[in-house]
């Protein structure tokens, strides 16, 4: 049984037909073509699928699409504005925080949530803020560094 839902994703409105139990991950990837949101485990264990729902980081694989109707959804494609990168994206490139890159988009969204709620995080805050996201390549060293750099860059601008 499908239902028609109206989703607000990255500021755009989309009408989609979804199964009651369809995950936001599947809707984003398979219906809206937003492939920046990655399927890693489908069980809330790796964080590759992290998006922001109403400004909070959420595992999209553990979120029903129908449950986010009326709430703004932000994916990595909506990070930054137009061709301008978010400070986190620039910092990830510069710091060497991207290796295979499969976890990257999810970690960027978790980090965006962290910085939105805590603009001047300590190293411990950063580590805790991304502890729901796994990365197998980097040891998190340069990811933690990049998030700290992004926080400072935004402060510098302000």
């Amino acid at each position: 049984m499908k239902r028609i839902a109206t989703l607000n994703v990255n500021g755009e409105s989309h009408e989609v037909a979804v199964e009651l139990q369809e995950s936001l991950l599947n809707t984003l990837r398979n219906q809206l073509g937003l492939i920046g949101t990655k399927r890693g485990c489908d069980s809330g264990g790796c964080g590759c699928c992290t998006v922001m729902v109403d400004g909070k980081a959420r595992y999209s694989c553990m979120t029903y699409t129908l449950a986010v109707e009326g709430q703004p959804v932000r994916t990595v494609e909506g990070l930054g504005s137009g061709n301008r990168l978010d400070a986190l994206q620039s910092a990830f490139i510069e710091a060497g925080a991207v290796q295979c890159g499969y976890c990257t988009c999810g970690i960027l969204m978790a980090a965006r949530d962290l910085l939105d709620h805590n603009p001047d995080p300590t190293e411990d805050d950063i580590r805790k803020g991304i502890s729901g996201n796994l990365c197998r390549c980097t040891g998190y060293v340069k990811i933690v560094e990049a998030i700290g750099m992004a926080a400072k860059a935004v402060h510098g601008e302000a």
Partner: protein
Amino acid sequence: METRSMELEVVGMRVANVDALDKVTGGRGFPMNVTMPGMLHGRMLRSPYPHAQIVRIDASAARALPGVHAVLTPADVPQKVYSPVYFVPTLAVGSVQDMLLLDTRIRSVGQVVAAVAATTPEIAEAALDLIEVEYEELPAVFTIDEAIADAAPQLHEGKPGNIAKHVVHQTGDIDAGFADADTIFEGVYETQRVHTCYMEGRVCVVSADREGNLTVHASMQHLFGLREKLAFILDIPESKIRVVKPPYIGGGFGGKLEVTPMEPLAALMSMQTGRPVRIEHSRREDFITTCRSPFRLHLKTGIKKDGTITARSCRSYLDCGGNATHGAKVLEVHGLFGFMYTYNCPNRYWEGTTIYTNNMISGGYRGYGAPQAAFAVEQQMDEMAEALGIDPIELRLRNLHQEGEKHPLFPSDFTTYRLDECLRRGAEAIGWGSRSGPGAGKGRKVRGIGLATTTTWTSCCAGQPDLYEHSGAIVKLNPDGSADIATAAIDLGCGQNTTYCQIVAEELGLPFDKVRMTYADTSTVPFDAPMHASRGTYAAGGAIKLAASNARTMLLRYAAGMLSADVEDLDIRDGRIFVRNTSDRFVTIQDVATLADSPIVKMTQQGPVPDGPQFRGTIIGTSSFAPEFSPIVGGAMFVEVEVDTDTGEVSVEHVVYAHDIGKVINPMGAEGQVEGGVQQGIGYALMENLVFDQSNGVCLAGDFLDYKMPTAVEMPKRIESIFVESIEDSGPFGAKSLSECALIAPAAAIANAVYNATGARIKSLPITPEKVLEAMGRL
């Protein structure tokens, strides 16, 4: 490899990953994202039993389900016996061929029994439930001891005693060596199964056209290996299979070095239906597809009072699970590289046995048998050092092979080998001098420092006649003065694409941002060996440098003509080709490349006139190259841990890892390799374990909720990489290798640090709180 004597401009530069912009904005290039119009979704049915014979399969209800387009059971697929590992030709003598695509004999839980392709994943899954399979259960064996017992069930025909592979290697006179020793040390060490935990699960999309030509997309580590396996298993010519190179994949770490049933099954279902078929693993399927091979080692070393090792023997048992796959080669690598030649010793004896059990299939994982050996060897080195009253660093220095030595067995001499310098610099950085005796700390939380070394090799051409080694590339100049690289050498996430762009930019005298990695598939580029054995920079990088060098030769020939100068008198700087010692006689690379692709008739005011073809034709270089040599790399890892003596928990506080990897092409990428290796090593040492129910062979840690790998909070805040840059003449710009080296020492170093902190020595992995408390006598 010949390197011109010149200042390096791009090689050695700290550069951002060339794919990073794409990856931070969505990462479009992953195979997981490939879809095709009209695509069907495949799913695989797996055995719930560890050892069984399939008596009957009835798939009629599944075939009748609306939306189902193909169903495959063992009766529907070719029955060719094969080895799934990519890095050996299927019929190579060294590989154990014991697998069928779909077998009616089940040897481990999760073995694929049937497959379905349907219009949606949901229908495919519903169809799997409709396949009736009648199994006759057989007695199963889950431990090495059960498997080698006299009354054990035999898992494979012609493999008595469940022995898949048995190797004996010896040098000198082992008995005389032990007789010559003042003291003999013995120990039994055990290592567990761990998963590589690539973040992008395994996935493939196979599309067959009406003539039976296959186009294959997959997340894997070897394009040509996949082509060869598909051709063999499906019994079709290799020319009918085109494996497309993904721009990058989401990690491999050795976990994508074999064909799994998904690719040939998807191919067969696509050929049957004429529609593309996509199969993806659930994470649970990934966890039971391959893992680091578990070992039990009996290590014995004879040593003199002055610390000279006189004899070393080891018996190693590898539990490969239901099929040998990598089990035969991991065993050899473990013994010959991981154990036999890490330290000098005149008298060596090693006996390795790979044993079939009804556990999950083991595999190859970054380090490939060497971390298991290091866990034993490096702990025993510390045990001996303490008993003899010799500093652990000193004991190692006294027994190291020396730079310049010939390798006793393989053509991988110690041409460049500065492990001694790694030890000295690492010791200084960690503060080795302030290290106290074992268990000296007081209070609930105690600290300890430990070390372990690794001596391994780059690539694997040396002494391994069954292994592929060639790499190849096409380097082509564009009219805008940029260069494209096409190669099947694939970027698993280690930064190969970036390294290759640096190598080509350096060789051609182009700015780094003027070089791009571009499309490749098995129909268009030269053969390439798998991305394994830390061969990416050295072997594939060498091939890419050679292709660039060939393009450079053509470029200079054209430029010489245009400048009316001799090729020998030209220099390339900053995208310009100069007549040496002049500043005004030059052409730009762009000028030359533009002319090369121009018409051979030029337009003048008087109309078109012939312009001659002498500087025309695309500037291009190709290569197909295998190094003749496998240089040795060394690493010394130092680690400080804190142990909670009430809970037994170990936390890693500070890591210094010094490597001699030759010339570092991209320092930022190299650091990333070390940091990731340390992370995987901490997981291996302290927490990761693919736990199985030993009564029925079912994996109990089949997702990331149950399988614990380090998150950012479990990682130390201080990880320091030290690079000792010996210049290896056989490598591109002096480079050797890194990736695996970084994961060989950590578990052993952490075990030694735990001992230093607590006085408790733990000889089985992972070092869990329970084991720590038990070893401390507090349980």
